[in-house]
Structure formats: structure tokens, C-alpha cells
């Protein structure tokens, strides 16, 4: 059930109504029920997967928690008699058992994710290698549909597992509450991947109706729909046309596609997250931000601290750090420091860990080579910019332009260009084509398409461009205003009429200018006699 479907709007309105009318102690149970109804509508067959993930996570986490409690009780009980070594030995014994539990839960869940998502991808590659080595008979493909949000809730629950294993917080003993954490429906479609301790603060609490919270939440939902319906879904038509016909639309059209796809992805993704966070806010639940004005990132590293933050932090905490502080890895670093000398030796663990992270990030986005190459390109850019640091320092030493307005603008443009260039892999879904098209952007660049109406035959007419231009200006203005703190707070401080007027204008803009429904197709009364 997509965010933009009527049924979803009815679904959440019903939820809001019930949420604040039923007795407070049933509120989180209502959320759980709604989340599972949402999941059932998406695909009854998929319930089995989310239930397995929830149950295995619950069992393993509670087991680990039990061992921790035994450990603490044991240590407290014979505090004096035990020497430090005994304590350490006992502790590592317990750790080993807990590790087995963690491992089995990880195996089951990541195994399930791997089988469902990547089985065809691996078969395709096996077949490819078989062909290369001449044995014709390839494996047949397995037809599995992807359960809704499996990558999101699997990562979220595994993050919870590892936190419990690390003793960050005790496990949730109520299976229902854990089930809600795993299946909280707004997060199923586009994330964010929340941390248990962060979400649990408000997810299970009882919430009173709070006018300010409600209106802020609704405003945020509207803002999400504005970006999604007015901008993203409108420009998507042009994006699809440009992708659909690579022969006709190469050269400067590839640049147009880069810009359009970046706008579409930004509007669609941040819009979707706004809706998610807005819904949670109306329910009194605090979901962490997933974007921090990513368009203003001045370098790739900073970009990935502003874009899809929850995924970035997940990989950093549960993959990047563990790999780089892993015993064998540290041994390898010591070895490489003697062999390659201090300077290279020091950076090696970082690059190996980063490589692993970016490879999995790419694979996480989708099970095909273009996503993996997308991840590796990001890694390459990060590594190069890290290596060039001394060069930058030398450059800035000579022309002290560091920190000036023009330099910042240059950095922002450069980062955006780089990111959208790499993102082309997402559009063409095929690595050779992407590189060929990217090349053609320079080889066969002809800027006449901007003057001879070339932009009008990719599915958008002049009015569409006007709407997009104005809508993007509004988004830009809001982004600028956000530097001085939350825009909704500023609105809230003004007299009520202003707030309501903005709310109403946004609502009308979505209804009138939104790209939805049959009416949106270009030839409105399609003459179709058969």
C-alpha cells in the first residue's frame, strides 16, 4: 500500500482516530495490530518472514539477557572470593555462550535475507561463470517476491540483537513490544532503521493528545506529500522517458537525467521519510531524522553523514567498527605497518573496513551489479578524497580561499555532481550502459536541447516546468529557513492564522498540482474504442 494511495490516507486517519480514543494502555497494542494489518495487505505470505525474524530475535535476546543477569548475580554473590583472573575467565565463558546465540540469530535472519534477495543474483552469476567455462547447463531461477521492507526490519532487529549482546541495554521481555519495534509500519516502506533504545523511549509510552505535536506531525506529513506528489511523481515521468530510450536521449540528455533523477530521488525519499516521521509525531513517537539538508554537503564524507543517516550509522556501528577492531585485523595492521611503513600501514585497516562496508551497502540497495558498483564507486571517491587531503592542504596554503562563500558553493556543486553521476547507475540498471551514457554526455554534448524545446518532448509540458520550478524554490526557501531552526517552530510563533494559511495552501497545492490519478495522463480523454 503506497504512501500515495487513498487507502493509505484512510488507513492512517483511522489509526489517528482510534489511537486517541481507546484507553491509553492499549495504544501500543493498537499500533502493533495496525502494523500487522498493513503488512497483511502488502502480502499475506510475507507475514511468515517477519514473524520468524521477530521470534528468533526475541528468543536469542532474552537468552543473552538471562546470561548477563546470571553473570551479575554470580559476581555480586561471591564478590570477595573471586580473583580478577577467575572473574575474567568466567566472564569470557559467558560471553562465548552468548556469542553462540547471537551467531545463530544472525545466521537465521541474514541467511533468510540472503536467500530471498540475492538467490537469483548468485544463480545469475553462477550461470555466467558456467557459461564462461563452457558448461552450458545453468541453474534455473527461483521466483521469490521480496517481502515488504525485509532489508529494513532485518537490519533493525539485528542492530537490536548486537546492542543486547554488547550489553548496551537489557532485552525487551515483552514479545508484543519487540514485534511492534520490528514491524512499526511507517518504517517498513523506506526506513529509517531505528535504534531500539532511541525508539523505545516513546514507542511504548502512553500518549495524550497534544495539539502542538499533532499539528506539527500533520504539517510534516503534508510537507512529505507535497514533495512526493508535486515534485517527485511529476518529474518521474521525464526520468522514465529518458531512461526508457537510451538511443534517443543521450548526450546532454544524460545531464538532464542526472539532475532530474537527483531531484526526483531527493523529493521522493525525503518526502517519504517526512511522512513517516510525521505519522510517528502525530502518534507522539519520536523517530530520528534520516536527512540533514543533504544538498548542502561540501564533500562526500559529509554527504553520507547527511543522507540516509540511519543506514550510515547502522553500517558504521555494526560493520565498520567491528571489522576494524577485530583481533585478526589489528594483527594484520601491525604486520602491514612493518612491511609498508607507517604511513600506508596506518590507513590499511580503514580502507579494508570501508571497502567491506561499501560493498555491503551497495548490495543492500539491490541485488544486481550496478548497485554493488555504485557502492564501490562511493568507496573510491571517499578514499581518493582522503588521500588527496595533503594536496588540498597544500592548495589552500597557497590560495587562502578556504571557507570563502565561493569555495563552499564550489564544494557543494562538486559533491552534488559526483553523487548524481554515481547515481546514474541506479537509473540505467546496467553498468556498461551507464558508463557509455556518461561518456556520451561529454562526447556528444549538444546544449541546443535547452533552447530548441528539446526539454518539451520528454513527457513534461511548460506548465509542468513552471510548477516544478516554483515548488523547488519553495523547498529551497524552507531549506534555507531551516538553518535558523525548525521552520514549524517559527510558524508556530506567528499568529494562528499564518499557520493555518500555510497548512491550507500546502493542502490545496497537493490536491491541485499533485501528479496523481487518471487525470494526470497527458491525453486526458483518451479516445480508446476497443
Amino acid at each position, binding site marked *: 500500500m503506497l504512501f500515495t494511495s487513498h487507502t493509505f490516507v484512510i488507513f492512517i486517519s483511522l489509526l489517528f482516530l482510534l489511537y486517541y480514543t481507546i484507553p491509553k494502555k492499549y495504544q501500543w497494542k493498537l499500533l502493533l495490530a495496525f502494523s500487522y494489518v498493513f503488512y497483511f495487505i502488502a502480502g499475506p505470505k510475507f507475514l511468515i518472514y517477519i514473524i520468524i525474524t521477530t521470534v528468533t530475535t526475541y528468543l536469542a535476546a532474552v537468552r543473552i539477557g538471562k546470561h548477563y543477569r546470571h553473570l551479575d548475580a554470580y559476581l555480586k554473590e561471591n564478590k570477595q572470593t573471586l580473583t580478577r583472573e577467575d572473574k575474567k575467565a568466567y566472564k569470557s565463558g559467558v560471553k562465548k555462550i552468548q556469542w553462540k546465540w547471537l551467531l545463530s540469530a544472525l545466521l537465521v535472519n541474514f541467511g533468510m535475507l540472503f536467500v530471498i534477495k540475492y538467490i537469483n543474483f548468485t544463480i545469475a552469476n553462477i550461470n555466467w561463470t558456467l557459461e564462461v567455462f563452457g558448461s552450458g547447463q545453468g541453474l534455473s531461477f527461483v521466483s521469490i517476491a521480496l517481502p515488504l521492507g525485509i532489508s529494513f526490519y532485518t537490519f533493525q532487529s539485528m542492530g537490536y540483537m548486537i546492542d543486547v549482546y554488547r550489553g548496551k541495554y537489557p532485552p525487551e521481555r515483552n514479545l508484543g513490544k519487540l514485534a511492534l519495534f520490528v514491524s512499526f509500519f511507517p518504517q517498513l516502506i523506506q526506513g529509517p532503521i531505528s535504534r531500539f533504545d532511541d525508539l523505545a523511549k516513546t514507542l511504548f509510552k502512553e500518549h495524550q493528545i497534544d495539539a502542538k505535536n499533532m499539528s506539527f506531525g500533520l504539517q510534516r506529513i503534508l510537507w512529505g506529500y507535497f514533495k512526493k506528489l508535486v515534485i517527485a511523481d511529476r518529474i518521474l515521468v521525464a526520468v522514465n522517458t529518458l531512461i526508457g530510450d537510451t538511443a534517443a536521449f543521450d548526450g546532454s540528455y544524460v545531464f538532464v537525467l542526472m539532475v532530474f533523477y537527483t531531484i526526483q530521488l531527493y523529493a521522493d525519499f525525503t518526502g517519504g521519510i517526512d511522512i513517516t516521521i510525521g505519522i510517528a509525531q502525530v502518534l507522539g513517537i519520536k523517530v530520528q531524522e534520516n536527512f540533514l539538508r543533504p544538498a548542502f554537503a561540501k564533500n562526500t564524507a559529509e554527504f553520507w553523514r547527511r543522507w540516509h543517516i540511519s543506514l550510515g550509522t547502522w553500517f558504521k556501528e555494526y560493520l565498520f567498527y567491528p571489522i576494524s577492531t577485530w583481533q585478526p585485523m589489528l594483527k594484520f595492521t601491525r604486520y602491514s605497518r612493518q612491511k609498508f611503513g607507517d604511513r600506508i600501514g596506518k590507513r590499511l585497516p580503514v580502507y579494508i573496513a570501508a571497502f567491506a562496508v561499501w560493498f555491503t551497502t551497495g548490495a543492500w540497495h539491490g541485488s544486481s551489479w550496478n548497485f554493488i558498483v555504485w557502492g564501490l564507486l562511493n568507496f573510491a571517491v571517499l578514499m581518493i578524497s582522503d588521500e588527496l587531503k595533503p594536496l588540498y592542504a597544500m592548495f589552500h596554503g597557497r590560495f587562502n580561499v578556504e571557507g570563502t562563500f565561493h569555495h563552499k558553493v564550489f564544494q557543494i556543486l562538486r559533491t552534488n555532481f559526483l553523487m548524481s553521476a554515481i547515481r546514474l547507475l541506479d537509473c540505467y540498471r546496467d553498468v556498461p550502459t551507464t558508463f557509455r551514457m556518461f561518456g556520451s554526455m561529454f562526447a556528444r554534448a549538444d546544449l541546443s536541447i535547452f533552447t530548441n524545446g528539446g526539454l518539451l518532448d520528454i513527457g513534461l509540458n511548460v*506548465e509542468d516546468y513552471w510548477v516544478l520550478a516554483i515548488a523547488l524554490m519553495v523547498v529551497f526557501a524552507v531549506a534555507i529557513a531551516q538553518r535558523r531552526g525548525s521552520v514549524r517552530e517559527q510558524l508556530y510563533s506567528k499568529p494562528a492564522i499564518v499557520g493555518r494559511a500555510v497548512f491550507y495552501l500546502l493542502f490545496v497545492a497537493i490536491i*491541485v498540482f499533485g501528479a496523481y490519478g487518471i487525470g494526470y495522463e497527458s491525453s486526458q480523454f483518451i479516445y480508446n474504442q476497443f
Partner: protein
Amino acid sequence: MKKFFSITLTFVIAFGGLGLGQRILMPKYTTGIVEGALIEEYYHEKAPHDVIIIGDCEVYENISPITLWEEYGITSFIRGSAQQLIWQSYYLLEETLKYEKPEVVIFSVLAMKYDQPQNEAYNRMTLDGMRPSVQKFKSIRASMLPEEDMISYVFPILRYHSRWSELNSEDFAEAFKRQRRFHNGYYMRADIKPVETIPEGRVLANYDFGENAYKYLDMMVELCKENDIELLLIKAPSLYPFWYDQWEDQMVEYAKKHDIEYINFLELIEETGIDFSVDTYDAGLHLNVTGAEKLSMYLGSFIKDNYRLKDWRSDGDLAEIWQEKCEFYHGMKALQYEELEKYGYLKSIKGE
């Protein structure tokens, strides 16, 4: 108290604004495809009618209520619309019975050939004109195609919002007060285009009308029986789409079985005096005004003989109301003939 007042005020302005926006954005069918404005005109009628005619273009282009009044004093109204499907006709009739109780109901049977919903554009033209009612809701549900959804009928702005870039002066002028274009549901066309050739009908795999179509025809018969209304089935003298003999047999047999009248004007070309070189404006598909008048002459006498309807021309107030309608009718007829001389085509309808 002041807070309550300001909240209700904002709601009034909010919904008022959206309602106004919706009225402006709805298509007005002022030129080009004018048939979309047919249904809505019924609600402005001041007096009841003895004869209600329902169906598709075979009724609203071939029968002239003004002639029925002038020649026989019969009061009639055509609740027709483009490619009106049989369930839409049925629910329109059911809705009409809320406003008045006619003596005779005439239904054009060509619609029997459509057993399933056909086209979103036609649905919109027939259904958007209806006022909100249970019948409208049922008619929408029976007509909806898979890609359509109920909410865009309840709030048409969800369907027509993207018309914002095509608005013209008529959209604003006729947002509330719609200009009258038809004569008790009759769409006058004075132009002439003689018939040359009519292609024979293609061989069909199955000539039987669908169950869904028969179901609603039975319901129509039942509804008329309950309200002791005389039902008259007709097939207009349109030469295309082709009216197969197998279809004809089914209708004749159906009429006999349910003891209702059935006239096939295709077999009464001489009796009605219709001459296909002058009486049609699109080479045989629809009659023009002269053709419609001839057909109405015959139809009027048939109704007079079979259904003993009162001749209302002597009734003072009715005569006054219909007097104004006749003037409007003859005025438009003269205007159309004038346009034909001056431009060779109906400028007011084409709208270029």
C-alpha cells in the same frame, strides 16, 4: 468561544475554497464535446413530465420533446447521455422516480450490446452530472473500471485537478450557473451529411446479449411494473453501429414475453418519412433536427394511440412553461441554419 468561532471560520473558508476550486476545475463541456452537459439540465425542470426517455445518443439525438409537445401536447424529457450503459439508465430512472412519476418510460435498446463498463470518459460524462444520491452511488459502483476509484467521484477535484493548466473563461463563468444548451434533453444538430455507404456488420462469435445487460433490463421492467408505468422499448433508425437480426429477434421475443411494446424504427423508414440524404448530420449514425422531428411525429401518434395520455396544451401554466421552451428551440434552430449558410458548419458547437 472566540477560539471555536475562529476554527469554524477557517473550516468554512477551507472547504468553501476547495468546493469553489472543484466547481471551476470540473469540465464544462461548453464546446466540442457538449454531450457531457446533458444530465445536469434535468434538475432545472419546473414541471413534471408524462414521458421520460432514457438511453444513449440514439435517444437524445433522434427524439425532439418540443415536437411531441407542439403536435400532441405530450410533456417529455430525455435523460440521455453519451454511450449511456443500461445500468446507468436504470439508476437514472430510479432517481427520476424520486422527483416525479411519469406515465410512460421509453428506453433505447442499443445499450444492451454493452455487458461490461466500457470507458472512463463516458462514465464521467454520465455520472458527474448526477446530483448526489443513493442511485448515483450504485450507478458509479456498477460502472467503475478497474483503474477508477469511488473517491474521485465523491470528490471530482481528485480527478480533474490537473485541468488547472487548461482553464478558460467558460470554466469560471459557468462554475455555478450553467448555460442551457439542450431542449428537454434533445441535442439539436441542424447540419446535413448524407449517407453514402454503410459497412455490413462484422461476424460476431456470440450474438446473445450479456446476462448483466438482461439483469438490468429485467429490473427496469420490474421497476415500471411496481410504479405502474408503461415501458416502451425502441431501436432508433441509426444505421451504425450495425443492428444484427439476431439482436432484433432477442428484443422482439423479450418484449412479447414481458408484454411490453417494442418499436424498431429501422423497419419504419417509409412510415416515418425519414430520408437519409437530408435527415442525418453524420452519414447515418444520428438524425439531424428534421429527422428527429419526423421520428417524433410518428412516436407521438404511437404514444397517443397506445397510452391515452392527456393533451396538456390546454393547461395554462404548462402551456406557458413550454411556450418559452419552444421559443428557445426555434431560436436555436434558426441560429444553426444561419451559421450553416454563413460558415458551412455549426460554429457555436464546434467552438473554434
